[in-house]
């Protein structure tokens, strides 16, 4: 991380205060690496974060401009910010699964509908881990957490034939991908494509939480157990997957990059046209 950290991150925020064995740093690094490989500078990116492990740990790490919204609202704030920012500025948001697929889901869907130019990297630790480990919207069925001591009974966005990316695609997102933090360059490549899309991009990255998720769900805090658990469930997009099991189907799920006009560009064009007519 040294080269990337020196170039892009604030020294006082490195190392982060994440638990040992946490996979969040892997997602963070992939995002910064993607920025670097695209040749973007500190001044080219405005970094947004949500609430939870992903939000708090990545907030104000970026050397340039940073903002953190209240829980689930970073997408709405980013939509407003998008109107004010020059089109070449990138908005990149690192957020959690609860923030994006739970409390902020309505805003996320409307960002997809509007095709607001931003890249949302969902850092998914499979539940509400910063509050001590409660089940969320991607927590596997039957898994024990502090709020599901008998195992989760609620359906999630990832099993029983459901996939949250389907909903986002139907809502109008123009780039969607899924990876795990244990994957390497392929995840970086997806994030690069996401950033290059002038429109709404979301990259869903599963990462291990050893302290809370693994402890309750797998009965161990050995990182290797959690890492293996994720690896065993990682498939390619076109692989046959076991029915009704929690599987992480990884790859570029949907790429309609730059096919549909972006929200702020459309708004700008609309305004210019009205002004022209008014003259």
């Amino acid at each position, binding site marked *: 991380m040294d080269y990337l950290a020196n170039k892009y991150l604030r020294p006082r925020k490195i190392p982060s205060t994440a638990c040992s064995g946490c996979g969040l740093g892997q997602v963070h690094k992939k995002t910064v690496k993607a920025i670097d490989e695209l040749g973007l500078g500190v001044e080219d990116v405005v970094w947004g974060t949500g609430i939870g492990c992903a939000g708090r740990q990545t907030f104000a790490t970026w050397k340039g401009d940073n903002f953190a919204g209240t829980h689930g*609202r970073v997408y709405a*704030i980013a939509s407003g910010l998008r109107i004010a920012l020059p089109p070449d500025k990138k908005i990149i948001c690192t957020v959690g699964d609860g923030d994006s697929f739970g409390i902020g889901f309505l805003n996320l869907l409307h960002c997809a509908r509007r095709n607001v130019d931003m890249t949302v990297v969902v850092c998914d630790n499979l539940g509400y881990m910063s509050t001590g480990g409660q089940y969320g919207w991607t927590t596997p069925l039957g898994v024990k957490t502090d709020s599901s001591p008998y195992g989760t009974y609620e359906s999630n966005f990832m099993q029983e034939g459901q996939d949250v990316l389907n909903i986002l695609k139907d809502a109008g997102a123009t780039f969607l991908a899924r990876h795990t933090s244990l994957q390497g360059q392929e995840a970086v490549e997806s994030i690069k494509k996401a950033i290059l899309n002038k429109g709404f991009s979301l990259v869903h990255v599963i990462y291990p939480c050893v302290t809370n998720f693994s402890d309750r769900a797998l009965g161990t805090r050995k990182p290797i157990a959690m890492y293996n658990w994720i690896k065993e469930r990682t498939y390619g997009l076109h692989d046959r997957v076991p029915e009704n099991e929690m599987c992480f189907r990884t790859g570029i799920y949907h790429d309609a990059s730059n096919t549909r006009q972006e929200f702020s560009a459309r708004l700008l064009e609309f305004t210019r046209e009205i002004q022209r007519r*008014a003259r």
Partner: protein
Amino acid sequence: MKRYFDTGNRAITEGAILAGCKVFAGYPITPATEIAENMSRRLPEVGGYYVQAEDEMTGMHIAVGASLGGLKTMTATSGPGYILYADPYGWALGCEIPIVVVNAQRVGPVSGITGAPGQGEFYIARYPTHGGNAETIVLAPNSVQEAFSLTVEAFYLSERFRMPVTVLADQLVTDGWETLELPETREEIEKMGLRFKEREICRGPVFYPFTDQLDVPPVVMGHNTGGTCSDWTPTDEGYDTEEVEWAHKHSYRLINKVRNNKEVIRRYEEHFMDDDPDVVLVAYGSPSRVMISCVKKAREEGLKVGCIRPISLWPFLDDLYHRKTNYLVVELNYDGQLVREVQRCVPTGSNVHFFGKCGELPSVAEMLLQIKQILNGEPLVRSDNWEWEAW
């Protein structure tokens, strides 16, 4: 000066446009919908942007986000939406982001009566979010003309204090039709006493100084200032912290930038207050119009009655209520909100009475009757078996 016959909704729109508002984001709600409609028509004409959000909370977040990008912004709603602003309002207060918020109050609680006036958000406008540790600024127009000028003023104050400012109107002010004079030249603007302040950009590295000073520019994203803002307690550089000392310093600023600069915000109107009136009426917003008529009528009848209309509601102008006398506070609610503050401020030995109506204005005759009861030392007159309390 051009004269129009139009609504408060139009006046607020024109005030915002004149103040340099470039983004409106909101959600349709009676009786503030026309503000959104007017903005959707006017903003593109001046190179601005109208966004209709998926709900009020998102609407204000989008508006605050655009302000974070350096544009002047506004949102408008009524009670049911104002309560949904709690989240972005708090964010804007804490991050010190300027924005103008309009609330056209209607009858509550909850959805209540949509197209009739109420004054139920006097305290919610003071405490528009959770957590305390902040002062708020609230202005209350009582006419279409004032809806215009106070909207301009709200933008000015929001920039100087770098915080949200609420224009607390009511349905009769926003939907009511009246003579509206709009300035067309620089001289006319100056003659109207309107104040303006352009957006500036905080360059850091101290983004949240431990000071009560005004005119500290807000954080603006996109200029690579290294600006940071978040929902957490910030250090002076904007880093999130859990340390109580920083919370103390941040709160000091949020509270005292308003408390120590009250004079910049202070606005009120008084009538017949020079001869120690026997009864002082107090009202804000549309009922104050009837109040002023009533006091004039009372004076014609030889009664020593005066009135006070607070225009800047918060921070509350405690010193206006320094006389030891009888007070009659008139509000468009049945529970009594403003009256609690008046009660808090008056000298010991004063008598504070409350007369409330909701959904429609009280009449001059009704107010006059209550004044006479007070002067005779008798209890206020009941209407519809409703007992008006002496506070």
